[in-house]
């Protein structure tokens, strides 16, 4: 196996094992999602019709907030113990390394959300979770890609969890708008899904490269 491929496999395996052996990293955002989902009916009142109407928007906001919880620390741990510099110096192309980290992260945080969608929809009295799950399938990777960029920007910031949220929220609005519209089903959902897919494609092409460039400047 060539050197970059070895390195890619090693990084992917290392990240996977990391999340496998540290369940708190991915269970916490999921637990957060479930708790908040339980809070909404309590706060808004249990009328089924209203909950059903609000479900796509509320669930999407919860997904967004959950991504803000776990992503900012994505590179912080690597910076603290010095391993960021190790994979920085590896023969692995840096955007690919970033992409791998984000992909594994999504596999443990975003994908479970997609799989949980039917359950969450049930909490709001929505029977057909199809549109919601599909919108989350395309949307959570988009959230992760932008979130990774945010994590790189705050690498040296001496601030709490509020700062990444502040930075990322305006940037995530397109995903939120397209995602909720797609989750609602109905006439506009197809357009929304297409727009979401297009935006995801743009992010897939640009975000890993931009994140790598950001890390390069932050490591200097």
């Amino acid at each position, binding site marked *: *196996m*060539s*050197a*970059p491929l*070895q*390195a890619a*496999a*090693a*990084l992917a*395996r*290392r990240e996977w*094992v*990391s999340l496998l*052996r*540290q369940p708190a990293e991915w269970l916490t955002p999921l637990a957060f999602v479930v708790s908040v989902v339980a809070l909404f009916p309590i706060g808004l009142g249990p009328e089924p019709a209203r909950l059903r109407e609000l479900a796509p928007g509320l669930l999407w906001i919860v997904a967004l907030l959950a991504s803000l919880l776990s992503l900012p620390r994505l590179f912080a741990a*690597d910076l*603290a*113990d*010095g*391993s*960021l*510099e*190790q*994979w*920085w*110096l*590896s*023969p*692995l192309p840096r955007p690919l390394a970033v992409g791998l980290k984000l992909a594994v992260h999504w596999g443990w945080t975003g994908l479970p959300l997609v799989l949980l969608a039917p359950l969450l929809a049930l909490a709001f009295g929505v029977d057909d979770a199809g549109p919601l799950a599909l919108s989350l399938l395309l949307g959570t990777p988009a959230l992760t890609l932008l979130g990774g960029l945010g994590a790189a920007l705050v690498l040296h910031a001496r601030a709490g969890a509020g700062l990444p949220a502040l930075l990322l929220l305006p940037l995530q609005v397109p995903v939120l708008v397209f995602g909720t519209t797609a989750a609602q089903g109905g006439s506009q959902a197809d357009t929304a899904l297409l727009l979401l897919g297009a935006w995801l494609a743009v992010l897939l092409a640009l975000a890993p490269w931009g994140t790598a460039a950001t890390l390069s400047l932050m*490591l*200097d």
Partner: protein
Amino acid sequence: MSLSAVSPHLARPPALLLQQLGQSRGGRPLFEGLDLALHPGDLLWVQGRNGAGKTSLLRLVCGLSAPIAGRVHIEQELLYIAHKPGLKDHLTVLEQLRSGAALAGRACSEAEALAALAPVGLADAAGQRQARLSEGQRRRAALAQLWLPQVPLLWVLDEPVAALDAAMVDRLAQRLDRHAAEGGCAVFTSHQALPLRREVRSLHLGEH
């Protein structure tokens, strides 16, 4: 990797070349106009008090930072062991060693990794999670990769002997000697002198 005994330095280009290198940190200049050529077989000991710029220089050599002035030329692959060497708590010692090697594009087998753990005295701890290692053990785990079969020619080591006992310091010195004899070279920082047999070049940073 044989070295010509007659004219060793003229036989091949330098492994590391620094030209008029200058760097600052925190707005404060660290050094400037640094010219240096490191040839195969050279060992360079970078000295200076804390904050003089030793780590900054090493990072420049590795290409992690960009210099304010001047250039760094590296002829080949290098190996960098930083002061914080990138040990993951959740991995075992063996996994870390193999993972780190593979990440650098130099994957090794389990047997080779275990063989590398023996000189650093961690063969018994191979299956232990690194979260439970002591400071000295962590330093030794980081150094184990120097005993793997595939090592690059240029080594950049930041404070390799911190928290090590005398026996381990000796073994590291022997490894460095052997590496230099085989045509490799190394740049390292250290607050204490290493018991090296070969001649060591010195670079002092900061005020004399």
